[in-house]
């Protein structure tokens, strides 16, 4: 049998060998097939045709459709052409909640000197427009950003003013706990079509315990209802963070989202920053989170089978990478990594940071990912020696443990996480919990596609539509 190999990677999931080509297309076959492909002893003619058709092997040295394949590869990395699109403005560390897992080191809402100055907001907005991206997302975070309404409004008005001549596509997102959605805040959201991204951890008893307040749930639900009435239900989304306590209640959490009329949920693990670092055993947490994820996921599938729309957003991201030709724009699972390439942080302290997690580290006096003062020029900041140094470790195609991994196309590089959990930017995959969690969940989703194709693909197609 005469053919040429094309680049691909393989792994084993369950009873299958899974093959992934350079653009993330996946095929599966019985164990032992990789050896057959390499040794040119493929026995199954249908498999042979699939391998040729999907750019795993070629009957001629240079495939006739190589240009098409190259264009597909470029499309998978199209986020690089978009330059930095997500710009996070941390207006303040002041907060009106006391979450047990707070990753942002929030402070009391009456605390002074922990909010962004108007001058730094002006500089930050100017930096945002230096990005060449035609699509700019201005995301307001905290603390609780709604406590700084004047600054929030000032930032949007500045962006609108500059955009009179820039003509970019602007999107505004307010990341809020929904407790302080005053008429003033909602009027600004209505006027500028601001999306509300809120957080809800589950049923009232669980949510209130996570938030360290007796009445948080009632206030959040009231805020969500108000935001939906004024902005429309499709302008309000929520995500949950799985505290250690939450891990015992996957079904209850999903049911709460369903009860409140949400059609999607992002099952999000804790990250090791801020108060969350108090967590005693991250390995045990990660193992429990993986089981929590699977149980919640199966319950979401059951809801879908009953005719309810409920999307698990993390799975939807992986499925888009697996089943569509497009890149997802999800900065946490990206190579080159999201830091600087796709996201920049303008912090309340007047400094630019590489990612949301980078500014969280700064609150623990770790300024590794502080890029520089907002008063410096954009070029000096984003092309600084520091950023160039990070670029050596932000491709999972080029780091040990990832470069051979068959799941590479669906995963990402995270030098900030490597630094914070393992003490160096490069990281060590055999003990990386980022690797362990992502690998377990991605393999689980792939096994769903392979082993339960007829049962789950109609649901998955709806999720990625």
């Amino acid at each position, binding site marked *: 049998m005469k053919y040429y*190999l*094309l680049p691909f990677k*393989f792994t084993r999931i369950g009873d299958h060998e899974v093959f992934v080509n350079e653009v993330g297309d996946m095929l599966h076959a019985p164990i032992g097939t*990789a*050896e057959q492909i390499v040794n040119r002893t493929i026995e199954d003619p249908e498999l042979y045709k699939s391998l040729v058709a999907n750019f795993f092997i070629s009957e001629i040295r*240079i495939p006739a459709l190589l240009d098409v394949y190259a264009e597909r*590869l*470029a499309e998978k*990395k199209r986020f690089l052409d978009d330059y930095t699109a997500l710009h996070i403005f941390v207006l303040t560390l002041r907060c009106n909640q006391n979450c047990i897992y707070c990753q942002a080191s929030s402070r009391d809402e009456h605390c002074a000197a922990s909010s962004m100055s108007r001058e730094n907001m002006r500089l930050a907005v100017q930096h945002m427009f230096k990005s060449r991206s035609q699509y700019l997302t201005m995301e307001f975070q905290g603390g609780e950003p709604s406590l700084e309404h004047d600054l929030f409004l000032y930032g949007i008005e500045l962006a609108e003013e500059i955009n009179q001549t820039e003509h970019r596509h602007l999107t505004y997102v307010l990341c809020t706990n929904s407790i302080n959605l005053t008429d003033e805040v909602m009027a600004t959201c209505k006027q500028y079509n601001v999306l509300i991204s809120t957080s809800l951890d589950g049923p009232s008893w669980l949510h209130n315990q996570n938030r360290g307040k007796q009445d948080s749930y009632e206030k959040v639900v009231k805020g969500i209802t108000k935001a939906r009435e004024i902005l429309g239900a499709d302008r309000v989304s929520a995500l949950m963070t799985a505290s250690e306590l939450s891990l015992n209640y996957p079904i209850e959490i999903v049911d709460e989202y369903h009860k409140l009329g949400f059609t999607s949920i992002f099952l999000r693990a804790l990250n090791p920053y801020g108060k969350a670092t108090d967590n005693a055993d991250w390995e045990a947490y990660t193992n429990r989170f993986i089981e929590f994820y699977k149980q919640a996921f199966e319950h979401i599938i059951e809801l879908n089978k009953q005719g309810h729309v409920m999307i698990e957003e993390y799975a939807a991201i992986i499925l888009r990478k697996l089943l569509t030709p497009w890149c997802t724009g999800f900065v946490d699972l990206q190579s080159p990594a999201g830091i600087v390439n796709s996201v920049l942080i303008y912090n309340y302290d007047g400094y630019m940071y590489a990612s949301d997690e980078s500014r969280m580290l700064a609150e623990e006096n770790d300024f590794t990912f502080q890029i520089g003062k907002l008063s410096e020029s954009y070029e000096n900041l984003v092309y600084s020696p520091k950023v160039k140094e990070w670029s050596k470790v932000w491709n999972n195609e080029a780091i040990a443990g990832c470069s051979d991994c068959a799941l590479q196309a669906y995963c990402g590089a995270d030098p900030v996480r490597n630094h914070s959990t393992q003490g160096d930017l490069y990281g060590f995959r*055999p003990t990386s919990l980022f690797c362990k969690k992502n690998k377990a969940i991605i393999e689980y989703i792939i096994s769903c596609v392979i082993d339960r194709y007829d049962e789950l693909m109609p649901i998955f197609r709806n999720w990625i539509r």
Partner: protein
Amino acid sequence: MKLSIDRQIYSDACISKVVYWLSAQYAIERTLDGTIETLSISRNDGHPFDETELRSQCLRLLNDYKLRQTIDDETRDIRTILYAKAFADDENLTVE
């Protein structure tokens, strides 16, 4: 536990990748005598382990990495062309 590997069958790179993944749990000393490399393996935590199972795991990993290396070696040039076509801003990169 000791595991002898013929470098004429499995390259240094293949063996290094196996050692890399095992090193989370095992301390591995590598010695080379001619073409035979010997891995001396013990648990990092000193606990006993199933040597038969580990030997089987090592051989499976070695064979997988050998296959991956063959794929990488045979596809290096076409991969370079593919990436150049995808990302180089040069419309003249056409294969004749």
